[in-house]
């Protein structure tokens, strides 16, 4: 939607940036439709689609029945028939009922039909913890979808990236899961170009350069790590990498950094075991074995159900846990 005065003065939030990307892409491409629970008249439970229905009408910004498999499955059909659907799943916890359609259909159609049937859709999903939400509103299932051949998995951490990555995702000819870190939705503002721009999928970003240790992370944890950066000793030079896309993974960016630093700490919210951190750590030891001066460390959620919110801060990796791991890894 057109920018408000506040946005012009103080910059855009992640919500604003995503909204702007949707607005601009719907204007540009009549094949783009948004669908999901409460995305229309109500503008989405996080107001990400605010105002879009008014501009584009209820046939392009569609309030669907309460039916995640229905949303995902009909979006697949829409995509196959030449539309560019952008389904929203209201919270990552509710991807469960849509899992089969996403994993067993959307991800497979191109390959199984040898290119004759394709599913260009972008599944938007509010993702992750830390906002005091009820049960199943705070999970981080990204590893599951990164393990699914045929899906791309994008996780922006800033308004600038969110806009550029979402435009790339919608224009991508294949299905993309676009996880939006709820904790960042309104926590940061940023001045970003009003004109459309894209950021290529599959490219990590070096947030801060350093020579002694690499921190690899994505999503809201980028900000946790940034916070931790302030607490490291003066003489510790830490490089911070925001993956932005976890599938496909920007292996070269990681390798380049760790070959330089020889040490790495990976930070994510999801449970540790078989989380995406394991893939990153494994790639590092495969590719940088001779450069490694310490075991790659993981600072992650625990191997337990995401707790109700009274305990969520104890579950989520915080700056202190990151700091501790970084110091120990440096001291190894």
């Amino acid at each position, binding site marked *: 939607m057109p920018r408000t005065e506040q946005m012009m003065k103080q910059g855009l939030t992640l919500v604003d940036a995503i909204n702007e990307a949707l607005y601009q892409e719907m204007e540009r491409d009549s094949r783009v439709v948004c669908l999901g629970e409460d995305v229309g008249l*109500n503008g989405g439970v996080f107001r990400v689609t605010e105002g879009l229905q008014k501009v584009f009408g209820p046939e392009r910004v569609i*309030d669907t029945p309460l039916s995640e498999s229905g949303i995902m499955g009909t979006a697949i059909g829409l995509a196959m028939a030449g539309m560019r659907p952008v389904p929203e799943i209201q919270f990552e916890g509710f991807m469960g009922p849509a899992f089969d359609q996403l994993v067993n259909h959307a991800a497979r159609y191109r390959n199984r039909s040898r290119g004759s049937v394709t599913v260009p859709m972008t599944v938007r999903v509010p993702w992750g913890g830390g906002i005091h939400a009820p049960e199943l509103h705070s999970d981080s299932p990204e590893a599951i979808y990164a393990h699914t051949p045929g899906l791309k998995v994008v996780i922006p951490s800033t308004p600038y990236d969110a806009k550029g990555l979402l435009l790339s995702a919608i224009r991508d000819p294949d299905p993309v899961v676009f996880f939006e870190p709820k904790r960042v939705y309104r926590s940061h503002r940023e001045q970003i170009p009003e004109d459309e721009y894209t950021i290529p999928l599959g490219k990590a970003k070096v947030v801060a350069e350093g020579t002694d240790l690499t921190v690899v992370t994505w999503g809201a944890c980028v900000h946790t790590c940034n916070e931790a950066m302030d607490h490291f000793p003066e003489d510790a030079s830490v490089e911070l990498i925001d993956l932005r896309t976890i599938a496909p993974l920007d292996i070269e960016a990681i390798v380049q950094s760790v070959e330089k630093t020889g040490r790495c700490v990976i930070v994510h919210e999801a449970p540790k075991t078989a989380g995406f951190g394991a893939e990153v750590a494994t790639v590092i030891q495969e590719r940088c074995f001779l450069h490694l001066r*310490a075991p790659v460390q*993981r600072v992650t959620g625990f191997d337990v159900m995401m707790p109700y919110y009274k305990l969520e801060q104890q579950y989520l990796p915080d700056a202190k846990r990151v700091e501790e791991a970084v110091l120990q890894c440096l001291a190894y």
Partner: protein
Amino acid sequence: MPIRTAYEGKVEFLQILDENGVLDESLAKGTLSDDDVVELYTYMVKCRAVDETAFKLQRAKRMGTYPQNKGQEAAAIGSGFAARRGVDWLVPCYRENAALWMHGQPMHYVFMYWMGDERGSQIPEGVCTLPLCVPIGTQMLHATGMAWAFKMRKEPRVCITYFGDGATSEGDFHEAMNFASAFQVPCVFFCQNNQWAISVPREQQMNSATVAQKALAYDMPTTQVDGNDLFAVYKATRDAVERARSGGGPAFIEAVTYRLADHTTADDARRYRDAQEVDAWMGKDPLIRLRKYLTAKGLWDDAKQAAADEVAKQTASEVVRSAEGITPPVATDMFDYTFESITPELETQRATMRTHSLGQRPQQAGLAAH
């Protein structure tokens, strides 16, 4: 017979106490006694007060998101009263607190739940209710499974499971209905059709004249009742529960009611629904209706109302005290309850409260001195 009728089904609507508090005596026969109604109305007043208190707590930032039950008390109470406490099981969603409390779930547990504390889902021994269920439309399968177990063991128990109009769009609803019907289990499907699923009105949720007709797909007995009419809800549920108990299989009930409040405290319903609509339903409030009826029958007066209000207020305060008075949860709980016996990895995570692993064997890393 080249064209013949292969199936016919219909749905009836039942109302016993109308919007003006006038009772259809013949239909009411054999349902609730005067004592029952007085007791249940008093209880309804209490539940409303506790519900309003939760709302205020959230606004004072002393509770997280909370979904008000306001306006749907007759549906919860009339149906809950039809089940046997400690025998039958209630499998809830989150908008039938009054039914759970009636069956022994401590009131402040619901508060603890919405305050983000798992102990609010810790069902006390002997209480036959499941925890609240956030993923919409999924719990009916659990109810079906439980009822199936009762049937297998020949126990005269019944499940009642609660869900909204929106929930009937989920695939799991369909699978639960089909299983329940195919295996003829003693499960009553109780739909609180409160006209809205967050911002989506029922007519947009489905292109069906009624929710109740969805049960015809499974040849399941089905009724639509005025959900703000305690008598109709009670009668329909009791009939369904007792039929199920005696081997008559599952049943479906659509209680036509209305969500008088926002979807949750995180919602602002003014964004998507008309004030007039809400006003019209305010007039159909189950409390107003029941009070009119009781008053007209000489069973109620202002003094009794004042007394009931006072008890309700005190109860609400106690609930808040209990919910806020508990010790903070301990982080170790999240490890201790993941499995019955903790695994070695979880033991390490629990002991260190971290996941990076140099510290797990510091001598290996030459960090023993630390």
